[in-house]
């Protein structure tokens, strides 16, 4: 048991290290990795590594981690292996929240640079509530398909809201809105700094509920009879997932399927125990998005693919596979 855990964490950390190293080493300009410790000898290379590639890889990693643990939590809470921030429409809600601040010129001095993220989180949480209430109205047992269909409906609706806001906004805003469609490029360290506190808070909230997530896999009634305050815990987990999704979307836009693929594969290999599924999804989500970002900027170099294209390329088949397998049960 201990050995298995050691292997799980060891291999996940190794994967993360390896993908970091790859992401920092590879790119349009050939830069030796050793320059990372050599500001004096090779200032240009040092600058590329520290100011362009590093923040980009770190941001990709943090966004991936945030989406992956949010996905793991949504799946566990809803007992639905197809739930993730993207498929249930929460990412779109976060986008609308974040874009609204720009469109309406909302700026709250108290929040400062965190304004976008906070509104993203509010958008995510409200969408989540509406989607869940609607899905429950449609079908009390909230079957897998019902939730996903509801997600599709709300994603489409919110997507057209985004388009409308974009069309109505000024030229310079269009660029801003543009990057909300999914990218971790050219963000620099400031975005990392915005994301980190929310990632910490969101992860901590979910981690406090790791054992409750395990218990709630057996249904709300059984969980209640095991002593879980189901209603309170459910809200806590929804808030935690919204914080992670909202913050991630506000710095990188909508990136689909990360929250679906990572928990699924992590669970398949290392088991469904949330005490380990959450931290392992964190590590693996980070690795996956770092690698996807690397692929997106190298595969058709010197041009770049949107990162969402790469994640969907991996994610959609996995989605299809899980759907197929679940339906045959």
């Amino acid at each position, binding site marked *: 048991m201990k050995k298995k855990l050691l292997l799980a964490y060891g291999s996940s950390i190794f994967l993360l290290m390896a993908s970091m190293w790859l992401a920092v080493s590879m790119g349009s300009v050939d830069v030796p990795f050793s320059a990372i410790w050599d500001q004096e000898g090779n200032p240009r290379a040092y600058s590329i590594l520290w100011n362009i590639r590093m923040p980009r890889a770190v941001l990709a990693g943090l966004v991936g981690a945030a989406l992956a643990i949010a996905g793991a939590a949504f*799946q*566990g809470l809803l*007992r*639905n*292996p197809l739930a993730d921030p993207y498929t249930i429409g929460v990412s779109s809600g976060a986008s609308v929240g974040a874009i609204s601040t720009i469109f309406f010129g909302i700026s709250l001095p108290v929040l400062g640079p965190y304004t976008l993220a906070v509104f993203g989180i509010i958008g995510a949480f409200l969408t989540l509530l509406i989607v869940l209430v609607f899905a429950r109205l449609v079908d009390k047992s909230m079957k897998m398909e019902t939730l996903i269909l509801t997600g599709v409906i709300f994603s489409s609706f919110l997507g057209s809201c985004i388009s409308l806001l974009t069309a109505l906004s000024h030229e310079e805003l269009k660029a801003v809105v543009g990057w909300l469609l999914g990218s971790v490029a050219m963000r620099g360290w400031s975005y990392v700094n915005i994301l980190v506190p929310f990632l910490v808070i969101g992860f901590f909230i979910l981690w406090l509920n790791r*054992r409750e997530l*395990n*218990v709630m*896999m*057996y*249904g709300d*009634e*059984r969980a*209640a*009879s*095991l*002593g*879980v*305050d189901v209603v309170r815990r459910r809200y806590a987990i929804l808030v935690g997932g919204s914080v992670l999704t909202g913050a991630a979307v506000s710095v990188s836009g909508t990136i689909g399927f990360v929250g679906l693929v990572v928990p699924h594969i992590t*669970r*398949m290999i290392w*088991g*469904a*125990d949330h005490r380990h599924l959450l931290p392992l999804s964190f590590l693996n989500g980070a690795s996956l998005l770092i690698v996807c970002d690397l692929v997106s900027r190298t595969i058709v170099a010197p041009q770049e693919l949107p990162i969402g294209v790469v994640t969907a390329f991996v994610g959609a088949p996995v989605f299809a596979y899980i759907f197929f397998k679940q339906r045959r*049960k």
Partner: protein
Amino acid sequence: MCVLKVEHISGGYQQTPIIHDISFEVQKGEFLGILGPNGCGKSTLIKIISGIIKPSSGRVFIDGTPIEKLSKRQLAKKMTVLPQIQNNAFPATVRETVEIGRYPHQTGFFSSWSEEDEKAVIKAMELTDVLKYQDTNVEFLSGGERQRVFIAQALAQSSELLILDEPTNHLDIAHQKQILDMIRREVTEHGLTVVAVFHDINLASLYCDHLLLMEAGRMKAYGEPHEVIIEQQLMEVYEARISTQAHPEQPKPQMAILPDFEDEKKEKTVSLSNIQMGADYVAFIADFPLKVLSSAVHNAGLGWYRTFINRTVPPEYDIENVQTEFMQYIMNNGFSPTNTVGMMTAVDTKKAVMKEYPASFGSLIVIVTAGIGGAVDVSRAYQQTVFQPIGTINTWVIINGKLSDEAFVQGMMTATEAKSKALQTENVMDKWSNTIATGTPTDSLLVAATQHGKYMQYAGPITEVGKMIGKGVYEATVEAIRIYKREMEQ
């Protein structure tokens, strides 16, 4: 000690009350079954007891404490509720699943796994016999094994009160028995208290100490199984025709469904033409099964059979292997061993006396073979020390009519009295005591009825059917004894 006390509870969902004024108590080490038709409120009652739904009035006490005074975790330590099992959304091993049961016992920020937790989990897996699968994914287990895993999870919770919603739903009889035997053992040997919802009335009657029968959210009956499993009551509540009967081994009533269909239109009667004479047997072969009560060698007791045979065996016949030998004999002669009642005698069955008596209710057939070599006076039999297995009077009474259970028993009595009277008339003596004999040591009697036509509740000597039994058995036995005497003289 009263573990669970439900006091005048009513309630349900929002505006619609489902449960109306239900009260009962469950003592420590008691198994209570909740019965009732679909939609009668069984599941809602369970939800109120387990605190998931608040009752609109009334209270639930666990160990004397009202449940609303207990925290969720405290309640979870005292009471385990296992709802109907749903499929897992995600894979988990048996051990992981059972470990979930320890949740209420783990406290603190890091809530580490204690030795007590480990012990409880191992014990629960041992009791339910799933320890051997502990590292297997629950998905890969059969329905019965999976159910046992969830019961193990419930046992690992280590509370003294266990509430189960249809614990053996969808399981085959072996798994039903295994799980209920195990729960019953925990109740009897370790004082576990169990409340379970049942669909299967017979299982509930067999395993529970008390039953609560619900109808439209109210208590229809409460008590020991024999106080609840009552024909009229169940028919009212379930709106289905049923009949109750004794369990073969346990003092618990069982019920049988009485189907409402006519299987065939044609008239169902029997007559002397149903008799077939074989080389060493006489057989009565009906086109349909008759209800039979008999003391035969093969398929004795109460049952439904189509064929009765009475077979001649030589005096040196080996009685040791009679069951298997007789079964083989039945099959060799082309009869169905599961559909045939078999008797035997040392008398030549070609000499059987066969009579048919028309009667107001239909008719009655009597077939008798008599050998009286070892005739005894039953009132002096206690003086005899030597068993003489020679001579047997085999009597069949076959009635075109419908008999109640008591009529079957009275029919047996009437036939026996008529037989004794025949022995008296023929002056058959008990050679040992030198008094008039009442029968032989190995007499057999069969009373069969077509269960069609007129219903007869009694068959004593002065009922229509009793009169014919008395007359028929008396006349046939006298004639058979005379034939026997004539044979002996030659």
